[in-house]
Every structure is written in structure tokens, then in C-alpha cells.
């Protein structure tokens, strides 16, 4: 960066630049910052003050300390694939990008764990150990690009979390830079079940509001000996849902049990990884079982039987790894594929009891008709984690607001069915107000009190995760209106 190019008059930029080593370690030009005005949630866009690229924990700590001392809002960002706006700078934050801290620090096969820096990409971990017969289980659909640091912040899930659990079940230790710049280690050396409060559990899924993770010890698992994948087409959503319930109640725990509805199928088939799903079917199930080789065939047979009992139109087992990979690419790129049939989408993330699936899907269908917006459903059916994708065109005046309302109504339907408003994408900016659907004022206060222990000045990723008091009353009125209307 030459002297003449130094366009910024913000003295903080100059000071921050001195804290990070290496070339191009700070961005401050308007054009560059525009690329950081949102993450995978594109509805709220705000420019950061600057973006800094630290190389190590010390640099992160120094940046945080500087921000803290100078009362500059700041937040951490990974690959920016989050879907709830967790990395969007609402308060002109200094964005601390973790992507240059992307080393795999240690692989300890004997103890089945690995230590990574937060910018390490999820899929790369599996790729690094797969030849030796191991893998990292949490597999969010964005795993090609998303970072493990971001996964920790959002407690990311994924298709295979039905059997193996979400990110929090795979985190053994964390190094964290606290909002005042102090560096702490939680569960050093990855010793499981460290005594005291479960701070790992608290930090994982805290959406970047309690601290910035700089080193992560994760659990790695032995790759399953065998694996089979089934694709089943249903003419009625109810039949597909019934099959999901019956598979689980038959005692099988599939590694993954995914469902897509008609609109979703239209999207993935129009996009880059089509597999030839029939256009006229109501639902497709993607079911995978894995484990020791003995017994896999038996489980597959049971699944085929269940599907047949539920009036499946067609059901098939992947004939080889290539076919399995095609089916999964089709499913895992599903959200992005919506771009092929709609300029914008808003993805929701409700959780419901599996038994309520047909009922809630029907309600979502009604919401779609009421709003006049198409809604595609791609979801982890096995654990009742719905992803209604509200398709809209932000260029049409008023349509963005309509989409937000429709998304919120979907979450309300999930909460009403005894479920929750987020399974794995986090609350972020998107679902703050909807926290009211599942928590009372006191419960929210209890949680913000915890946040204030870590982040008392609220400089770190402020204005997210919990509703702000002013909006609470509006939301209450909404709820009241809905109550009386019923």
C-alpha cells in the first residue's frame, strides 16, 4: 500500500493496519467494503468500517483490544455463508476476517481429534483425513466453503447430523479471544467433559456474541465401513412424511433423511446439478444408512418396505459412489439452486416434531398462497428441521417485506406446532423478533444477562440474536392480533 493510495482519513484504520502483519491485511476503500456488506442473508446490507485479516491469535487479540479500548464495534467473519445475517455489520463494525487463519494445526488419530484454526474450511478437514479412514461429521450444505469457526459460532448442522449430532457434539476444546482482548482456553487439550460449567456448549452456537474463537479442537470419526443411499419419489407429501415417521419408528437411525418438495425439485433440476427427478412428483426422500457392513442390506430392505407401504411411486438404491455423489450434490446445492428459478430467496429454519410434518407443510402451503410468493421446501426430515425457501424478487417494490412476513409466518407455524424457530442457521438478524415465539421476556433477559458477562460493552456483534426492547412491544401486538384473529 503506497503512501499516495492512503485515502482514508479515519485514524483508526491507520492504527489497526499497524496491528496486522503481511500485505493487503486491511480493507478500507468503499468498493472493497461493499463486498462485505452482507453474508448469505442478503436482505440487510450495511458497510463495515474496515475489514482486517489477522494471521494469528495475538493479532486477533490486539485488534480486539484496540476496538475495545476505542469503543469501536467489531465482529468476526468466516466465509460469510451464514444464512441469518450473523456476519452483517449492523453498527459499522470492524470486521475481523478469520479466513487467513486457515491452518490444520494437528491431527491426532490416536485420540481421534484434530486441531484447526477457525478459517479452516469444513470439507477440507474430511478431505485431509479421509485417506486414513476418518472424517469430520458435521456437514452443512455449505461445507465446500464454510469455515469451522463459523460452524462453531452458528452450531451448524447438516444432513448427517440426524445420526451424528450437530457441531456442538463434535467440539472438544476452544481457544477464545474475549471481547476485551483476553485469550482463554476452554477444555485445554480437548479433554472431554471438563469439569465446571459447560462453556464449550455455551460458546458453540453463541453466534459470535460472546467471543472470537481462534483455535478449535474437534472430534473426528472413523469413516463408516459401509454406506447405502436410497432415493424415493412420492405422489403425495403425506405419504413421504409417513415414510419418514415409519422409518424412524422402525428403529433405524439413518445417517441422513432428507426431503424436497415439488418447488424445490423444480429448482434443483433447473440448476447445475440435476439428476432427473420426475417433474410431477410431490416429494422426494433421500435416505442414507451407514455403519458396519453387516446389517446395512437389512436396513435398506426395511426402508424399501416402508416406502412401498407408503405408496411410493419409485424407489431406488444408488448403484455406485458416483451416483450417490450426484444425488448429494443435487441436494446440497439446493439453496443456491433457487437462483435458477428466482432472483432472491429467503430461507427459514424451523424445527417441528416429525409427526406434525404434513400439518405444518400444509400451513406453509397456505402461507405461500396468502402471500402470493412461491415457497420451496428442502429439509432434514429425519430431525424435523424444515427449510422453507421463500422465493421473491427484491426488485419488485414491497416483495422483500412480503417475503420477510411469509418467512416469519412459517416460523410461527413451527412454533405453534410445538417446535422452534431455528435448527441450525442461527437467529442472527433474521429471527430476532421471532425469539418471542419461543421465549418469554424473562427468559430472554436471562440470556442477555449471560451475554453481558462476556460482552458487557456490547461492542462485539451487537444488535443480534435477541430482540431489542422497542421491537418487543410491536411483536407483542402482532402476537395479540394473531391470537384474537384465531
Amino acid at each position: 500500500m503506497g503512501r499516495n493510495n492512503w485515502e482514508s482519513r479515519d485514524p483508526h484504520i491507520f492504527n489497526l493496519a499497524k496491528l496486522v502483519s503481511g500485505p493487503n491485511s486491511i480493507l478500507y476503500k468503499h468498493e472493497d467494503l461493499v463486498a462485505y456488506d452482507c453474508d448469505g442473508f442478503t436482505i440487510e446490507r450495511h458497510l463495515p468500517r474496515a475489514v482486517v485479516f489477522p494471521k494469528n491469535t495475538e493479532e486477533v487479540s490486539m485488534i480486539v483490544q484496540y476496538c475495545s479500548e476505542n469503543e469501536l464495534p467489531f465482529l468476526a467473519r468466516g466465509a460469510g455463508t451464514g444464512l441469518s445475517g450473523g456476519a452483517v455489520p449492523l453498527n459499522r463494525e470492524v470486521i475481523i476476517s478469520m479466513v487467513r487463519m486457515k491452518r490444520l494445526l494437528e491431527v491426532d488419530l490416536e485420540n481421534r481429534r484434530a486441531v484447526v484454526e477457525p478459517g479452516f474450511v469444513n470439507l477440507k478437514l474430511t478431505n485431509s483425513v479421509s485417506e486414513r479412514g476418518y472424517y469430520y461429521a458435521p456437514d452443512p450444505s455449505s461445507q465446500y466453503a464454510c469455515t469451522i469457526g463459523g460452524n462453531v459460532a452458528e452450531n451448524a448442522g447438516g444432513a448427517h447430523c440426524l445420526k451424528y449430532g450437530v457441531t456442538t457434539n463434535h467440539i472438544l476444546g476452544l481457544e477464545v479471544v474475549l471481547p476485551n482482548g483476553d485469550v482463554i482456553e476452554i477444555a485445554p487439550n480437548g479433554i472431554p467433559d471438563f469439569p465446571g460449567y459447560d462453556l464449550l456448549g455455551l460458546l458453540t452456537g453463541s453466534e459470535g456474541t460472546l467471543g472470537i474463537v481462534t483455535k478449535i479442537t474437534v472430534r473426528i470419526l472413523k469413516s463408516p465401513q459401509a454406506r447405502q443411499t436410497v432415493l424415493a419419489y412420492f405422489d403425495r407429501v403425506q405419504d413421504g412424511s409417513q415414510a419418514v415417521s415409519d422409518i424412524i419408528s422402525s428403529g433405524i437411525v439413518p445417517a441422513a433423511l432428507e426431503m424436497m418438495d415439488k418447488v424445490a425439485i423444480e429448482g434443483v433440476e433447473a440448476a447445475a446439478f440435476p439428476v432427473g427427478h420426475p417433474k410431477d412428483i410431490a416429494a422426494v426422500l433421500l435416505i442414507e444408512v451407514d455403519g458396519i457392513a453387516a446389517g446395512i442390506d437389512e436396513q435398506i430392505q426395511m426402508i424399501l418396505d416402508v416406502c412401498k407401504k407408503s405408496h411410493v411411486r419409485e424407489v431406488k438404491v444408488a448403484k455406485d459412489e458416483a451416483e450417490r455423489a450426484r444425488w448429494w450434490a443435487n441436494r446440497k446445492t439446493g439453496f443456491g439452486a433457487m437462483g435458477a428459478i428466482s432472483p432472491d430467496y429467503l430461507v427459514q429454519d424451523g424445527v417441528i416434531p416429525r409427526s406434525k410434518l404434513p400439518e405444518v407443510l400444509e400451513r406453509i402451503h397456505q402461507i405461500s398462497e396468502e402471500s402470493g410468493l412461491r415457497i420451496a421446501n428442502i429439509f432434514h426430515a429425519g430431525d424435523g428441521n424444515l427449510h422453507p425457501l421463500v422465493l421473491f424478487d427484491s426488485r419488485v417494490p414491497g416483495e422483500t417485506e412480503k417475503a420477510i412476513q411469509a418467512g416469519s409466518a412459517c416460523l410461527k407455524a413451527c412454533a405453534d406446532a410445538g417446535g422452534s424457530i431455528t435448527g441450525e442457521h442461527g437467529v442472527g438478524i433474521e429471527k430476532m423478533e421471532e425469539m418471542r415465539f419461543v421465549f418469554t421476556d424473562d427468559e430472554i433477559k436471562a440470556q442477555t444477562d449471560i451475554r453481558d458477562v462476556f460482552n458487557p460493552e456490547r461492542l462485539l456483534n451487537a444488535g443480534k440474536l435477541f430482540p431489542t426492547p422497542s421491537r418487543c412491544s410491536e411483536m407483542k401486538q402482532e402476537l395479540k392480533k394473531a391470537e384474537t384473529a384465531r
Partner: protein
Amino acid sequence: MGLPEPDLNLPCANSGLGNYLWSDPPKEYKWADCVHCGLCLEACPTYEQLGQEQHSPRGRVHLIKSVAEGKLKVNEAFADPVFQCLDCRACTTACPANVDVGGLIEEARGQVRQALPLTGWKALTSKFFLETLFPHHKRLEAAGGLLKFYQKIGLQKVVRKTGLIHMMPEHLVEMEAIMPKIKSSVRKKYKNVNIIKAKGNTQHQVAMLTGCIMDVMFSDVNEATINVLTRNGNDVLIPKKQTCCGALHVHAGDREMGRKLAKQNIEAFERTDKVIVNAAGCGCMLKEYPELFHEEPEWYVRAQEFSAKVEDISKYLHDTGYEIPKAELKTRITYHDACHLAHGQGIRDEPRDLLLHIPGVEMVHMANADRCCGSAGIYNLTHPEMASAVLESKMANVPEDVEMISMGNPGCMLQMAAGVQKYGRNQRVVHTVQLLDWAYQKEDRQGGKSDGTK
């Protein structure tokens, strides 16, 4: 939303595309497909190097869109991410929604070059290469003499001087003998020949794009292409009016020159049914000619007709069938996917198939084979630092124990040869079609075939 084809009745762009002031701006239907999911990030070599989102596909698309929305201006700060892109199209492969990032980048570059014309030495260099040299075959040939000299002292000298040739396995030395000496360009050689006749019965007639770099620096590849085509029943035409494909111009934002060259080629190949290309970058450009004519409906249609005739040599052979050579080459090779073959044209399996069917060829897998080598047209001249960082990670993936690296693009061949030299490796860089040709020649020498022996 993805429209299959542009609406030819759309008004010219300067009526309302924000801060794009010239005609032929980035097209809205292209960026409207991007939902900002970020699955492209890890596919991007510049993002891999820099980790900065303005240097990532979705970041660039976001910036391009922001100019159209009037939020940004076409200025230096916008030009940097747009020109830092290698135009390698790896993002297009990764993208779930098929966003045409490459097309957007090229259109954006067109705007940048008009808003900020190059000045100083950059302007001179660019003008020299893109206007003075490439479109003129004769000048290129003259320059080619120098390049050959460079090639000789740069690469072959290393092999010979270090005595490596004595350490090479015998069959490689043998191959060295089989390999044709660098000859004059095929356009010069067949100057007075209308049709290069098929050996045996004519089954098809094809026209061939000789390319500029290919014909000057790698005339042996063109020669091999002709040999392989004629051996497999193709009459080969080399239309005289053909010129540079214009890819380098379009990559550099000179779309006007690109259009001019495109028109000349469309006319030159008008009367042929098939246009065979052995340079991935050129093939991709020819297939994308319609993109240049969104505002010239008549030429848009002609370009579409032309593009439908274009095929890469490997895919053409694969699809129309070819004689499997009988002689054994006994060599271990690896294959590098040229970006504009794999990502640009979706051709991945066909060249590998050709290689695997040559007896005695053992293929060794290259990790991330479809990662850019950093050549990217003249990118290695305009962005040497990034190009060399990209080359370094490419070379790290080239298996140690192979004798040759095969590929289908001259730009890659130069860059990979430079990589081989820079990192002290000893692989020979070859074009896929050369291996096939050598196998045929060896077969003929061994008397495996009675007709067509040279």
C-alpha cells in the same frame, strides 16, 4: 432469473443501467441468478490466495451488480477486483445456479476499458500484443522465431545441458526422436493446399482453427492435430481468411476488437460444417461469440450458427470415433484440465479417455487437476505476482513420478513449462493430441499399418 437467451429487443444499455455508461454492459439476467450463497469461494484461485471477498466470484458479481444499481462507479477501485480475476470459470462449475461469472467479468472489463483507457507502458504493451501482433498472422510468425529461440534456450537446453537426456528412460529418448522438430506454422506450410485429404476414405470434412500462439509456438501440435484428423477419415480445411479468435482481447476488455475478429472468423468459416479447435481458450471463445453481439441481432444469429459448429479436438474424436493406436508408448503421465476446456466447455472425460486408450500410457491422478495454472491468457503478463502464486500451488499438485503432463491449451502449456523449469521438475509438457499422434507414428514405424506411413 435465468433467461436462456437474451432478449434481442431490449433497449440499448445506456438507458438505465446505473453507472455503466457504455453499450454492452454486464447483463442483469446473469447476476440475477446469484443468491450470494458463497459456494463459489473455495473454487476461486484468487480468493484462495488473498482470502478477500472482492477477489471472490460472488464478491465480484456483487460489485458488478452494485455499479448497475448506481451504488459504485466504474473506477480504479472497481477495476482492480474485476481485472484480478483469472477468468478461469472455476466458479461457474461450482455454482449451483449456473451464474455466468466469466461473462459478467468480461462485460464489466469492457466498461472499465472504456471508462479508464490504459495509459503509459501498459497501453503500449497491450496495444502491441492485442492490436499489432495477434490479429496479424505474418507478424506473429516473425515474432514466433524469437519465441522458438526462447523455448529452445529456456527448456530444451535445460534438459540437454544438465545431461538429463541421458538419465531419461530409453523409451523417452526414443520419443524425443519421434517428436517432430519445430517446424514452420501449418498455415504457412499448407498455404497452397486447399484441402488436406484424409488418409483412406473421406468420412467427414472439417475446418480447423489454427490459432495464433498455437500455430507459431506449437506448430507441432497443429501438425499432430492434422495427422490425427486425416488418419481418422477427415478432410481438413484451413480457411485462409481466419484470424485470431479474440479471446485475449475480450479477456482484456477490448470487446470492440473482439467483435471485429469474431466477424472475420464467422465469415471465414461460413461454408464449413465443423470447426475443430485444439486450443481450449480459443474454443471457448468461439463457442461464446454470441455473447459479443447482444446489440447486433443479425450477427447474434450468425454467431449462434457459427458457435454450434465449434468443437474441441478431443471431444470431436471421442464423439465421431477414432482408431485406437496399436503401438505402446510406455509412459507415465498426468493430465491437467485447461480451465477453458473443463470449466468453459465441460470437457473433462474425453481427453482422459483418449489418453487412457493409448496402449502403455499410465495415467496418474493429479489432485485439483482443474485448478487454474495461472496462465489465463496474458494474465501472467499483467498480474505476474498472482499468476506465479497460482502456478506454485498448481505445481505442488503435479505428481512427482510422471514423465509428462498432458493438456489441451497452449497458454497452459507455456505456463506449465515455465513451472516445470522454475521448480526444477523434469516433466515434458505435451498436448493430448500429440500423444495420440506419436502412438500412430510409432505404430507406422513398427509396420503396424500399411497405408498412410509417412
